[in-house]
């Protein structure tokens, strides 16, 4: 159908032509006019407190205490359960967040600008490994780290980013792919490249060597530091592709621990949801699938632009880490995702695939026709609030989301 093919080429071009640059770190309240007191943004499609999973509830309680809307976790939980908190998806505010994806007004956010289309997207700073809010952690150590990110690290790194004039992200991704990253469960190379680029600017703008050393060490000790930057980049690249009538290209994939949701270019802001699946993967010592929560996070935005599970061939070590099979089989994931995408990204190539570009532009028609669903590399959270990460694995997007979207496109175009 020519209308669809033309619309898809337009949507694809808008994704590929993006020029994402990290330009600042700014408190959320200064970036989002509608973000008020007692309002929490979360990962995934819209959800109410009653349907939230354990780690999401745990993170909500922690975020409430962090913002000072309640004195302790118990009263915070009561406040949320009584309807005292307004919940919205990050995606409705131009933002994304990993796992539980908590965003509240005082949290510092990365600002990524798309110079080609003059739009911006935001994501909170990665907290590091261990007990963290994105995996449902909410104790004093979690809140103390968030306060340090807000009061110390965010301002220090923000000043350095502004002084640098911004950091080009596409070139970091291109180098990271050649160094074994897929930008979802492995960000070691990109985090290191970013640190190499920003460290001189942090030194030039620093007024305190001890603080500078602390901030540099925080980046250097977190292999996943770059993930949140890559996520904001994914959001800023896909947003311009929204709203092209007839296009069947996916512009959003995300999950909230209960539902998986997608949005499609030709259908604008409309969500298509289905129950989210359980990741299959490997567990940390002492944990098993009995402890796992169904998948969650806005991080599937990286798969939406051809990274993560779609770029598995670039990161064979990840296949072993997440229990996705032998490293030699990593290329099968990328080849399979090529069956449901309309193009390759020539700027992001994979050496192990003879420098083929990452598969880009998920077409809902191809997903439903083939029965091949997007694969997403993911972390696994404990199903109870307050515990944190228990493993890593691969999760499949539910086919039902794509079937609903195909029917909606057909209805919109008057096809029956």
């Amino acid at each position: 159908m020519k209308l669809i093919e033309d619309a898809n080429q337009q949507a694809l071009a808008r994704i590929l032509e993006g020029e994402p640059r990290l330009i600042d770190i700014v408190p959320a309240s200064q970036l989002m006019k509608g973000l008020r007191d007692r309002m929490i943004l979360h990962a995934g499609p819209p959800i109410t407190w009653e349907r939230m999973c354990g780690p999401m509830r745990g993170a909500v309680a922690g975020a409430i205490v962090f913002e000072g809307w309640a004195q302790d976790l118990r009263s915070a939980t009561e406040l949320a359960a009584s309807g005292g908190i307004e919940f919205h998806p990050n995606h409705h505010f131009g933002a994304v967040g990993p796992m539980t994806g908590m965003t509240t007004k005082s949290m510092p956010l990365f600002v990524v600008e798309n110079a080609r289309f003059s739009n911006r997207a935001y994501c909170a700073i990665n907290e590091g490994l261990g007990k963290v809010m994105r995996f449902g952690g909410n104790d004093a150590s979690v809140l103390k780290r968030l306060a340090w990110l807000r009061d110390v690290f965010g301002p220090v790194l923000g000043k350095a980013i502004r002084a640098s004039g911004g950091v080009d992200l596409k070139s970091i991704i291109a180098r990271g792919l050649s160094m074994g990253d897929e930008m979802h469960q492995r960000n070691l190379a990109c985090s290191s490249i970013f640190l190499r680029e920003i460290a001189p600017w942090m030194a030039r703008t620093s007024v305190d060597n001890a603080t500078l050393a602390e901030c540099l060490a925080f980046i250097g000790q977190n292999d996943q530091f770059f993930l949140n930057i890559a996520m904001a980049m994914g959001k800023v690249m896909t947003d311009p592709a929204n709203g092209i009538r007839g296009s069947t290209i996916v512009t959003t994939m995300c999950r909230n621990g209960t539902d998986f949701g997608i949005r499609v270019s030709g259908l604008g802001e409309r969500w298509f949801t289905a129950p989210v699946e359980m990741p299959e993967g490997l567990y940390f010592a002492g944990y098993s699938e009995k402890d796992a929560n169904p998948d969650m996070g806005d991080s599937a935005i990286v798969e939406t632009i051809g990274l993560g599970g779609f770029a598995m061939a670039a990161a064979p070590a990840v296949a072993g880490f997440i229990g996705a099979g032998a490293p030699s089989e990593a290329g099968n994931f990328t080849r399979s995702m090529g069956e449901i995408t309309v193009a390759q990204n020539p700027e992001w190539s994979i050496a192990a695939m003879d420098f083929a570009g990452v598969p880009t532009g998920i077409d809902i028609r191809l997903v439903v026709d083939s029965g091949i669903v997007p694969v997403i590399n993911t972390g696994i959270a404990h199903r109870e609030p307050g515990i944190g990460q228990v493993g890593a694995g691969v999760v499949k997007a539910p086919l039902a989301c794509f079937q609903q979207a195909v029917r909606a496109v057909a209805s919109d175009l008057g096809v029956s």
Partner: protein
Amino acid sequence: MTDQNGPQYQRLLAGKVEVVNVGLEGFVKDLHDCGIGVVHVDWKPSAGGDPQMAALLAKLGV
């Protein structure tokens, strides 16, 4: 069809057989176990065999 050497399918199976298996992968093992060369083609019907969805996809250009 037949000719002076009998039905064609009988001649087909009289010599060495090489098989292309399309779809269900379960047949591959049985053929292998019989010492028959087989190449598997990973194929599924459109839309998992849902005729209404397949028809809709066809109208949408798949």
